[in-house]
């Protein structure tokens, strides 16, 4: 036991919330609870033999069942020895396996792989600790037996059961198979299967089983023991915990007992402890049967069985379960929750290693971020690395010191933050300290965090009033929308507002509160811009409300006869900058034409088809004039965020205009060929949301992480102020940022890495706050573990950002190929993990956690910024989509990549409610029935698709009498009949679920070209479009590439 102590500091201590924190340090058993992260560390061979407990002992229910205080190890030794390992382990080992296995999607292949898997399942003892869904549970349950013989009477087990994971239902089904097992005879196989089947529902049965198994212990065959030793003898790296050793040791016996046909694998395991891990993984992977002969792929692929994310994005739960104190995944998602422990391992992980952060994401209901005010204390932070106090810090020295979880420096606790620490290491005031129990908190910043008094929310409008703006009706819609939002602008009564309009001249408006009407001042000198009035161009909204309203009312009229076609955008931008630079704030630019006068004038350059496919191709996607980047840099410096609204039907060089938004934390909204009659609702909704959503002003963000890892690159819309400080003049819930990690040291010695995202911002109400999200992730030594803990959503998000950035300096094709190559490499590496053990030549294997990766990869290649070549997307659209995707949070990105396709005609006809229309269909033309009505929703637009043979009643009810006519002119308006009302209700329901953009409804009839192709068919990403692959071909292509040089 003495050997244990030195290890203690290394435990990834589960913060004090778990009552077991203290036991960890005192008894080896307790420590298992916290040791999940390190559980895969191979144990030292010697001790594993001597200490082997008879039962596959994992840490037991730990936090949930405190009554099982683990007994002293010494005793456990003597008691534990005699009972035979195999019987006990075999008795419930397999069930575990069954449980773990079932979650994997039942692919057609399961049948074939079945036997070997089952065999693996026999030894699940090691894997469970790391398993996401069943992980903690099974892990814990396994330890339990260990404690039983040691002294705790079986009754006590039952008392432990009440916890939700172990509902009492006894599992008689279990005990039945068990006797069969002992003889370790062939029949066992089938019996297992049944056991498994029964077990799955009644997983809780474990506890009882264990009790039984204890009784059966004597049956064990001693013969298996040596075997086990043999298996484990090979020297292993220093073991962190005895506890794990138990877990390990008991593993082999299981196999031994469970069947002769496992013999081969036993030898396999003997090779080295780590193998134990990969076994666990083996249960995880899924495979696709691609035909038995490598040459005849085309026949063997069942398209219907390919994995599809029809349930939307699934956040990895394993992470949250392992570290319940982590912040919600909507704030921070890692591409893999298992960080590699060495650089060599990291280099084998070909997917991006990093995180996607959405600091202001709307918190799930009931989990609002608590606000903490350290009024007198000052914010508690680590002296050295400036980490904020969080749930993972540990208090020592009777509460007088705390250890920083990121740099492990021992800090003094200030006297007014002091609280006593109880026996288990928890502070007595824990329940009053949200910062020590919650992964996300918000601190009220003291005066040291302010360079100046908190700024008021400020909205400045820069409006193009040239002829196209007036003709398209944009001006009117915009003015109305702003006027309707005046009441809802955040920050009353401090909110500031101002306007500049421009065509070939620049118009300033004096909105002094004492005036009745705004005064207009025209500056026509574009070379030497000056501000005609020192004050009153930017006014307090609550004071000048009447003037502002009068201005907005008259704005469309003022310019209704304007015939000016020029646009002095650059000079106007400079003028706006002069007005705003004092305070900062948000600038909304409404641009209708290509900037044609003064600085920053741009040329028509997008039409050059010859450039495509050459090395110069990317220049079209980067800003033409350095003026824009320079302006963006100045804007960020003065806390100005720019949102660009572009409306033109012609080329407006979004690539250049968007730069302003990119570096100032803004956003690009693009409405190609804006017509107020069609796009009115969309502009109105999105502008209103932009104006009224909760915004964080003058923000900076930094992500800290533990020793040995470092964030090397950041991707998104922001400006990097120093190496790791993101300057964000304005942030809101619709913005996410991605960052890539790298390992600084060749070997990580810690077992857990902590991440802390800190966003310092000014809220609209004028409070300076710091939002802090903290998360922990285990360090793993196995590539398989990394795959198992991978998060497809975060990976795809990072991939898309990397690819879009790559299009700015390379050809589209290069960007696509780079991503494809990384996916192939990753799958190949994964394949290499298993190809030795299984004969899988004809199948494609991939980790369960990454089953959607190929599909999302395909979707990414077909997304607007990356698809095809010149003709496949307008240059402006491509750039606008690129800027948008750089900022999208994970969930919305995934929905954009793999949109929802839902059939609704049945629910329209049926009476009653329609809660079950959420069944999403695969995105292929085969899903479309000519008699059906479908809604396609990618978060940005709806397409309502009418089948050719749809019942005329429905069509007439929905779009009126001219349902046979031209659908491009038809809009879907509410009509006075049941079906129309229902459809509207459905659409509204979809819209409410995703309010960040307005989904404009396009109606398309089957066969109506080219609209059908444009709106829907190009977006059916599983189909073969143009030169791009269909899903099945894509998978085959990937598979072929994976197998090359495999």
């Amino acid at each position, binding site marked *: 036991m003495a050997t244990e102590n030195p290890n203690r500091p290394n435990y990834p201590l589960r913060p004090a919330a778990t009552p077991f924190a203290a036991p960890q340090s005192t008894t080896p058993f307790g420590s298992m609870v916290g040791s999940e992260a390190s559980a895969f560390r191979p144990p030292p061979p010697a001790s594993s033999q001597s200490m082997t407990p008879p039962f596959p002992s994992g840490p037991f229910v730990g936090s949930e069942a405190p009554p099982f205080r683990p007994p002293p190890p010494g005793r456990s030794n003597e008691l534990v020895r005699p009972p035979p390992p195999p019987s006990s382990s075999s008795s419930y080992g397999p069930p575990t396996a069954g449980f773990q296995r079932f979650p994997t999607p039942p692919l057609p292949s399961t049948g074939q792989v079945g036997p070997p898997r089952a065999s693996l399942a026999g030894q699940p003892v090691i894997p469970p600790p790391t398993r996401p869904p069943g992980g903690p549970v099974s892990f814990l349950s396994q330890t339990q037996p260990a404690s039983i013989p040691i002294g705790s009477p079986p009754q006590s087990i039952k008392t432990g059961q009440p916890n939700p994971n172990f509902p009492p239902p006894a599992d008689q089904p279990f005990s039945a198979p068990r006797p069969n097992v002992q003889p370790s005879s062939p029949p066992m196989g089938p019996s297992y299967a049944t056991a498994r089947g029964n077990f799955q529902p009644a997983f809780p049965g474990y506890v009882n089983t264990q009790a039984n198994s204890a009784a059966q212990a004597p049956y064990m065959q001693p013969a298996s023991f040596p075997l086990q030793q043999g298996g484990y003898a090979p020297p292993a790296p220093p073991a962190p915990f005895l506890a794990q050793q138990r877990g390990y040791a008991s593993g082999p016996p299981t196999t031994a007992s469970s069947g002769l046909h496992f013999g081969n694998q036993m030898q396999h395991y003997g090779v080295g402890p780590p193998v134990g891990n990969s076994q666990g993984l083996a249960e995880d992977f899924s495979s696709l049967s691609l035909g038995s002969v490598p040459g005849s792929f085309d026949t063997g692929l069942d398209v219907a069985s390919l994995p599809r994310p029809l349930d939307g994005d699934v956040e990895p739960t394993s992470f949250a379960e392992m570290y319940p104190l982590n912040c919600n995944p909507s704030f921070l998602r890692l591409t893999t929750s298992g960080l590699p422990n060495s650089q060599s391992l990291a280099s084998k992980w070909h997917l991006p290693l990093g995180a996607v952060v959405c600091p202001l994401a709307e918190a799930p209901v009931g989990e609002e971020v608590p606000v903490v*005010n350290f009024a007198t204390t000052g914010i508690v932070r680590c002296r050295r690395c400036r980490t904020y106090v969080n749930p993972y810090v540990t208090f020592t020295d009777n509460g007088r010191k705390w250890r920083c979880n990121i740099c492990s420096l021992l800090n003094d606790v200030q006297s007014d933050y002091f609280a006593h620490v109880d026996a288990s290491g928890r502070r007595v005031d824990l329940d009053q300290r949200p910062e020590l129990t919650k992964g996300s908190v918000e601190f009220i910043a003291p005066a040291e965090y302010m360079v100046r008094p908190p700024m008021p929310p400020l909205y400045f409008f820069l409006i193009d009033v040239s002829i196209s703006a007036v003709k398209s009706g944009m001006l009117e819609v915009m003015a109305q929308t702003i006027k309707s939002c005046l009441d809802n602008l955040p920050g009353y009564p401090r909110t500031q507002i101002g306007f500049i309009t421009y065509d070939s001249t620049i118009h300033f408006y004096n909105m002094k509160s004492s005036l009745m009407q705004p005064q207009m001042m025209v500056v026509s000198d574009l070379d030497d811009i000056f501000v005609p009035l020192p004050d009153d161009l930017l006014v307090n909204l609550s004071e000048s409300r009447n003037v502002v309203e009068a201005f907005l009312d008259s704005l469309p009229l003022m310019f209704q006869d304007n015939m000016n076609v020029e646009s002095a955008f650059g000079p106007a931008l400079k003028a706006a900058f002069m007005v705003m630079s004092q305070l900062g704030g948000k600038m909304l630019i409404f641009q209708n034409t290509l900037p044609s006068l003064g600085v920053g004038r741009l040329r028509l350059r997008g039409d050059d088809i010859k450039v495509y496919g050459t090395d110069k191709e990317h220049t079209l996607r980067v800003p033409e004039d350095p003026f824009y980047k320079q302006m963006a840099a100045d804007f960020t410096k003065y806390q100005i965020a720019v949102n660009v609204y572009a409306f033109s039907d012609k080329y407006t060089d979004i690539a250049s205009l968007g730069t302003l938004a990119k570096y100032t934390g803004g956003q690009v909204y693009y409405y190609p060929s804006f017509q107020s009659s069609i796009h009115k609702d969309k502009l109105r909704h999105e502008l209103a949301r932009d104006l009224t959503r909760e915004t964080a002003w003058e923000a900076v963000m930094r992500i800290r992480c533990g020793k040995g890892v470092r964030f090397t690159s950041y991707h998104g819309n922001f400006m990097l102020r120093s190496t790791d400080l993101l300057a964000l003049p304005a942030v809101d819930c619709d913005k996410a940022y991605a960052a890539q990690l790298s390992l600084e040291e060749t070997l990580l010695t810690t077992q857990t890495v902590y991440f802390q995202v800190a966003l310092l911002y000014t809220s609209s109400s004028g409070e300076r706050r710091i939002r802090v999200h903290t998360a922990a992730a285990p360090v793993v030594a196995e590539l398989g573990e990394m795959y198992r803990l991978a998060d497809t959503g975060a990976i795809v998000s990072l991939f898309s950002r990397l690819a879009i950035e790559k299009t700015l300096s390379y050809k589209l094709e290069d960007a696509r190929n780079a991503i494809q190559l990384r996916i192939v490499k990753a799958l190949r590496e994964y394949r290499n993990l298993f190809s030795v053990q299984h004969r899988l030549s004809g199948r494609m294997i991939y980790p369960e956690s990454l089953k959607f990766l190929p599909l999302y990869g395909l979707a990414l290649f077909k997304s607007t910024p990356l698809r095809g070549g010149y003709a496949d997307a307008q240059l402006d659209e491509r750039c606008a989509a690129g800027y948008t995707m750089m900022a999208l949070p994970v969930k919305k990105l995934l929905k954009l990549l793999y949109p929802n396709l839902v059939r609704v005609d049945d629910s329209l006809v049926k009476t009653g409610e329609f809660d079950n229309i959420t069944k999403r269909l695969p995105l292929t033309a085969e899903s479309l029935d000519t008699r059906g009505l479908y809604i396609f929703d990618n978060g940005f637009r709806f397409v309502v698709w009418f089948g050719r043979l749809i019942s005329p009643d429905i069509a007439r009810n929905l779009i009126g009498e001219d349902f046979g006519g031209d659908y491009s002119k038809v809009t879907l308006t509410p009509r006075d009949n049941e079906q129309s009302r229902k459809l509207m209700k459905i659409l509204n329901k979809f819209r409410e679920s995703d309010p960040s953009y307005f989904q404009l409804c396009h109606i398309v009839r089957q066969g109506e070209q080219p609209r059908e192709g444009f709106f829907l068919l190009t977006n059916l990403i599983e189909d073969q479009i143009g030169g791009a692959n269909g899903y099945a071909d894509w998978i085959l292509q990937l598979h072929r590439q994976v197998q090359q040089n495999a």
Partner: protein
Amino acid sequence: MVKLTLIARVTDGLPLAEGLDDGRDVPDSDYYKQQVKALFKNLSRGQNEASRMSIETGPYIFHYIIEGRVCYLTMCDRAYPKKLAFQYLEDLKNEFERVYLNQIETAARPYAFIKFDTFIQKTKKLYQDTRTQRNIAKLNDELYEVHQIMTRNVQEVLGVGEKLDQVSQMSSRLTSESRIYADKAKDLNRQALIRKWAPVAVVLGVVFLLFWVRNKFW
């Protein structure tokens, strides 16, 4: 003309409100803000200061009044009439106390009453031009007497604390240095002793050695 306006709690120097986009045409407004902060810090240390004071700094002058443990401070051009400046502060004070009086003590975060800046802004504009009828009337108002208000220099005010610090520092340095001196003196004394008697001792030693050698071998 009013350049800066700040309102702070005297007990701990916590800033409560500040005029918006102040200091636009003051080239180094940050430097003066620093001075103001230092001033607040001095006040919060409980140094006895008059409740009304003017402090000269560079081309500008600070005026402040302390009332109900809140300090209202403004920075103006030197040429700006003192009388108007103090009336401006009075106006702010009256409004601030009317709105926030019972929240002042409980304010826990800096700039808790930042919303007051709109009022500061409005009032400031009234006082902007000294030649308006309203302001001339105020200037001529004999009832409001400002002659008694002391004018000091900012170095002097900020220097008080510094000087005290310096004195205590010097005295502590003095004690430590005197201790070192005493040690050194002792050491020197010993060395002098050694230097004085060492040759004699050596000579004697040699003599005795010779004697001893002679006795032994002869």
